[in-house]
């Protein structure tokens, strides 16, 4: 049985089981901490660094998505330093890829775009990298546009953990990192892909989308994850 811990997040005293992360505790109490790579129902990887929080008594910033709650922990998620870093991270994402909202299928339904609003990004101070990236439209139903990928690896995790196909993975390194299907072949020729479309639904940007969708038409809904996870872990067929 989990022990119950009490802790303070942004001045609010909250309780959470010891197995919960800071992010779990915050979400349960309707305290917002920005995230990008995290998606409830998938393993946390702590890659995007947006959910970094300050914990009293610790020098290092810790990701809320992977740090477990502890008794009497005092967590600060909205300090000026954190806000500044978050904005820089979002700016870096925009500088890294080719994110052009006005022509994007996910315009208006994009988590990256929303993050831009949230952190108050009115311009990008960094050099745009303008990488040359490919679009893979070989799949019958879906399209992968590397230009819009933020490498959150949600697609990799949902395919591995939920669908069990492990079609997706990551190749390359540093700024040259990119997601691949199977052994970096065309998505359409993938032998392991079940065409379930889960990766498309969890993708936070317009990197994965349904074929035939026009600008702004691709809205995504990852509610199915909660349904599947509840069914698997709690044996409850509820949403």
């Amino acid at each position, binding site marked *: 049985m989990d022990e119950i811990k009490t802790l303070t997040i942004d001045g609010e005293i909250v309780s959470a089981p010891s197995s919960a992360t800071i992010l779990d505790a915050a979400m349960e109490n309707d305290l917002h901490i920005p995230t990008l790579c995290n998606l409830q129902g998938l393993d946390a*990887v*702590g*890659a*995007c*660094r947006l959910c*970094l929080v300050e914990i009293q008594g610790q020098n*290092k*910033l810790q*990701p809320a998505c*992977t*740090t477990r709650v502890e008794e009497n922990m005092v967590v600060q998620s909205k300090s000026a*330093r954190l806000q*500044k*870093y978050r904005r*820089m*991270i979002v700016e*870096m*994402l*925009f*500088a*890294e890829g*080719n*994110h*052009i*909202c*006005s022509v*994007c299928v996910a315009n208006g339904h994009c988590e*990256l*775009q929303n993050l*831009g*609003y949230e952190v108050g*990004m*009115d*311009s*990008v*101070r*960094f*050099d*745009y*990298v*303008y990488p*040359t990236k490919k679009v893979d439209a070989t799949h019958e139903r879906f399209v992968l546009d590397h230009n819009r990928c*933020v*490498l959150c690896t949600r697609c990799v995790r949902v395919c591995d953990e939920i669908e069990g196909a492990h079609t997706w*993975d*990551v190749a*390359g*390194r*540093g*700024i*040259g*990192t990119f997601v691949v299907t199977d052994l970096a072949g065309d998505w359409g020729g993938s032998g392991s892909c079940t065409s379930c479309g889960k990766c498309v639904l969890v993708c936070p940007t317009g990197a994965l989308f349904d074929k035939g969708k026009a600008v702004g038409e691709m809205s995504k809904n990852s509610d199915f994850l909660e349904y599947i996870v509840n069914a698997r872990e709690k044996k409850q067929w509820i949403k």
Partner: protein
Amino acid sequence: MTIDELYEIGQNFRKQLEGFSAEIHVCCSGGCFSTGGLALKELFEKACAARNISADVRIISTGCIGLCGAGPLVRLFPSETLYVKVQREDVERIVDEHIVGKRVLTELAYPADAPFFAKQQQIALKNMGRIDPESIDDYIAHGGYEALAKAITYYTQDGVILEVRSSGLRGRGGAGYPTGLKWSIVRKVKSTQKYVVCNADEGDPGAFMDRAMIEGNPHAILEGMAIAGYAVGATQGYVYVRGEYPLAIERLKKAIKQAERTQMLGNRIFDSDFNFRVDLRIGAGAFVCGEETALMASIEGRRGQPRPRPPYPSQSGLWGMPTLLNNVETFANIPPIILNGGKWFAGIGTEKSKGTKVFALAGRIANTGLIEVPMGMPLREIIFDIGGGIPDGGEFKAAQTGGPSGGYIPMQHLDIPVDYESLAQVGSIMGSGGLIVVDKTSCMVDLARFFMEFCMDESCGKCIPCRVGTVQLFKILDRMTTGAATVQDLHTLEELCDMVKDTSLCGLGQTAPNPVVSTLHFFRREYDEHILKHECNAGVCEMPALDEPAPVAAAVPAVPAVSAAETVPAAEAPAGKKNGGSKKKST
């Protein structure tokens, strides 16, 4: 195998050695290998055969003797004369004069009392360069595996850990975590399976300690690992070694096979119920795999990417099992600690940094090579006495420790003692032991740029601050060295350094800005001169004179520069502008 049988192997081998009237040790490691060490060995063999004294003279190739800059090195026993820069034509002379005539060739011999050797204290490197790395008998004859026998026969598991704790040994990989503490954590975690891992993924530019140690005395590492395995209750060990070190891999393979055959590894070691096996895992060239969680992912066969800690490997490591992960040098220090006791080791070094540290001297230094000095030795002594100072009348500018994660130590801090705390105080780190000396011909901005490029190339791409931040840092530094930077760039640079350091996922990103921060702290004038005057004191960076227009820093493809957030008007081409493309000019 019992402890007596072990002594017998040693005695037999020593008796065999007594049959030789002389020994020729030819260094065939790293630098000496590339300057023709192996060919020298063959020439010595031929020369001895021609004089019919082959049976009297033992000729072996050894691991690193240390004075790599003066290679190829040849050491003759029993007189322990070291000949430096031995050329092919010297071979006959050495055999005739020294072996046959018993006269030391003074013009080739390196003075035995020279500070390079006299000021060193060798513990981890003790047998390196003195034994045949491919012979387990030679290692046993020099006291090898005695510590393992002693640990298993006379010590309890906790006793071994206590000995290591009392030695005060700290992790030699760079961070300096107390080794005994780490061992006791792994020992206490309850699990059906535990692992011992040796991190030999040495990747810092200019560092070659681990390589030399494995190539020169692979059994010492295996012995250290086996003792660790006994202490923490592990039955399986892995050595994660770089694929770029083929000779180290070959020597380790051979050593493992020999150790298994002599029952130093395997089942029922020294007739106890302790079983321990070691396997090799070979890295595929990623620097980040030196980070412990990435290293373990790589051993498991997954993509070499770090994961957030905690959980630490000592609790949940390889395949979720408690794993003890230490550096090559840490393991090499274990057998001497067990043999001589922790107190003996703790008597060397400073209060908080015990024992000795191996350094690879590189850069603008007369005696390039591998040294081992007691902790707390002043940096000046290391560089000017042991290292022999700057060659060709050059002037010292700074010493770099810790590779791409470390910092620069300028002239005014030359007298600091070299230990974990003192180095951290001046903004550098101990690191794994790379020590690169730079003189006035090096530009600090250019060096910072070099290390940033390294980190940028080696970032795994998992977390955003490291993946993109290092690229942005590199771009700014690149602009500085080409005369295209602005004052605003300097502010952004500092801001980025803080951000990448504070927010990155693993040590690679967290320490990537260190060379920049350190040079900014001590050599800020050079940055200012580059930006404001387009001057590079060292004459390394080529920049247009100030009245000329600055060149376009990065190639910008003709893509319409459209920012993604709708609230922002189209941003201007970012790199070509002198002000670095900030928002001021965007409307």
